[in-house]
């Protein structure tokens, strides 16, 4: 099985553009193994470098020190083996849904052979009949579906998700969580998701990587040993939620307090 990610001692410092400002340390020695075919969430307070780590895996940033390997190959730049779904949908507003989804295939000059894939993925995310619509004509949830299809159509072995559902309402969000899980199961791919929603992380993941800020590093990797399909809000969620919040020092002193978070 493919899609194994090894993160070895990764440091990332953002050098300031002016001499008067200090450099920002975004990652301070991160080690992590992501099993092939697993669903892993990165969670932590803002500024903990979770998005930076995802962007390094995606090849959008270069690590200052250390390396990331995908199936034994060092990652240096973006590649078709990794799909990336960004925060918000970020569809190209000047292209129709179909052309958005076909963008990567056209850019890599393989559109002719893979034409049917575009149709298949439009169907997969339930956007039939909207092929010729422009993004502004779609609801937020539909835009996010199109964006997922665009990231998936090139058959990547890894899908990286950067808070993909953050801007959606609660119901659309739950629907899309299930759809992402379906795609994950059917396509046997590795998914790494950045989120700040503890419940979402527990509901979807095999492993939750809890990160901390200053110094930015992995605090704990928590295995979610719950059978799938999972029921939302089942009792065992509480234990995991408490564990995650405790690691983040957000557990509070009185157990009840966590309800209000």
């Amino acid at each position: 099985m493919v899609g194994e990610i090894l993160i070895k001692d990764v440091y990332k410092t953002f050098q300031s553009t002016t001499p008067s400002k200090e450099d920002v340390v975004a990652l301070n020695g991160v080690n992590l193994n992501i099993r092939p075919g697993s669903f892993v969430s990165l969670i932590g307070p803002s500024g903990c470098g979770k998005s930076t780590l995802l962007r390094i895996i995606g090849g959008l940033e270069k690590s200052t020190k250390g390396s990331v390997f995908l199936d034994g190959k060092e990652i240096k730049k973006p590649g078709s083996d990794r799909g990336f779904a960004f925060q918000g949908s970020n569809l190209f507003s000047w292209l129709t849904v179909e052309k958005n989804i076909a963008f990567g295939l056209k850019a890599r000059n393989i559109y002719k052979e893979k034409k049917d894939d575009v149709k298949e993925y439009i169907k997969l995310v339930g956007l039939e009949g909207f092929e010729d619509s422009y993004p502004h004509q779609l609801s937020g949830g539909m835009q996010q579906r199109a964006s997922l299809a665009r990231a998936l159509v090139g058959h990547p072995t890894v899908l990286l998700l950067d808070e993909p559902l953050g801007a959606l309402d609660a119901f659309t969000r739950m629907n899309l969580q299930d759809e992402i899980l379906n795609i994950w199961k059917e396509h046997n791919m590795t998914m790494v998701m950045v989120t700040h929603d503890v419940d979402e992380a527990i509901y979807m993941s095999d492993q939750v990587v809890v990160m901390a800020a200053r110094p930015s590093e992995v605090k704990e990797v928590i295995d979610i040993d719950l059978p799938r399909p999972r029921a939302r809000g089942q009792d065992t969620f509480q234990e995991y939620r408490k564990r995650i919040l405790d690691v983040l020092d957000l557990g509070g002193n009185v157990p009840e307090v966590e309800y209000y978070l």
Partner: protein
Amino acid sequence: MKKYGSFLFRFFLPFLAILLSVLVYYQIPDNGKQKATDHPYYLYFIYLIGAVVLVEILLGFFFNKVRERVYEKAPLITGALVFMAFLNFVTTKTLWLPILYFPSLDRIVGLLVEQRVFLVENILSSFRLLIVGFLYGAIVGFLTGLALGYYKIVGYWLNPVTKIVGPIPTTAWIPLALSIFPSTYGANVFLIAFAVWFPVTLMTSSGIQSISNVNFEVARTLGASTRYQILHIAIPAAMPSIFLGVFYGTVSSFATLMAVEMNGNSSGIGWYICWQKSVMMYDGVYAGLILIALICSLTLTILFRVRDRVLVWQKGVIKW
């Protein structure tokens, strides 16, 4: 036609206005000072309008769209006809305005008819200058804007230059351009190109710079090369802004066209106006103004048609 019911009279309004015009024309005695024309050209002109309206109404029986348009525009056409009847009244029937500067509509329309070959030659001369200058300006402006907007290093070195050179009014370059270029035509093309170049450069580069970086990142994760990103992200995303630049440039090219044609040219509609004025033929001046209005308006209409075609994904910024 049932739907229009009692509003049916709207369709007859233009014909009432034509009737009124004819009555004013023949029934009120002339002031006798306007130079007479061989034919009642002004009446021919409003008959022509009447004929067009009549044809549209007849077509309206078969095409809903045409009917809607006539229905909507009928009061406007009527207003224009009444206004012309008023102008005709003031210039030919009264002595309220100096006759020299306010020729009769007969003379203006007559001049357009009688000098049509000569006028078309001048229009073509103006159009050729405008289009050649515009194309140079727009293409060079687009390329400089692209380089300035996409490559930070180019922007760093060249932005100050465009910021200082660009805002100089085109007309200020006329003396220098006329002495440097071997031909007046070359100088004219340069001046019009310059008028278009600056707004196109500015709006292209600012359009590209304001594209959210995430668009380029998405493209990179999808395997797009730098070339592909420029062609398929930078340019289409900046297109609304580029069109705005082209629009500003076109408007400023009209002003420049007139300025260069009125300065040491011997053809073109701007030159024609100047020449007619110098021989005290104000009917020619008005005829020239009417033609310029038509040329500029037509050019902008074409421009906005192209924009609507290219930018279907966007809702209109400027209504035309």
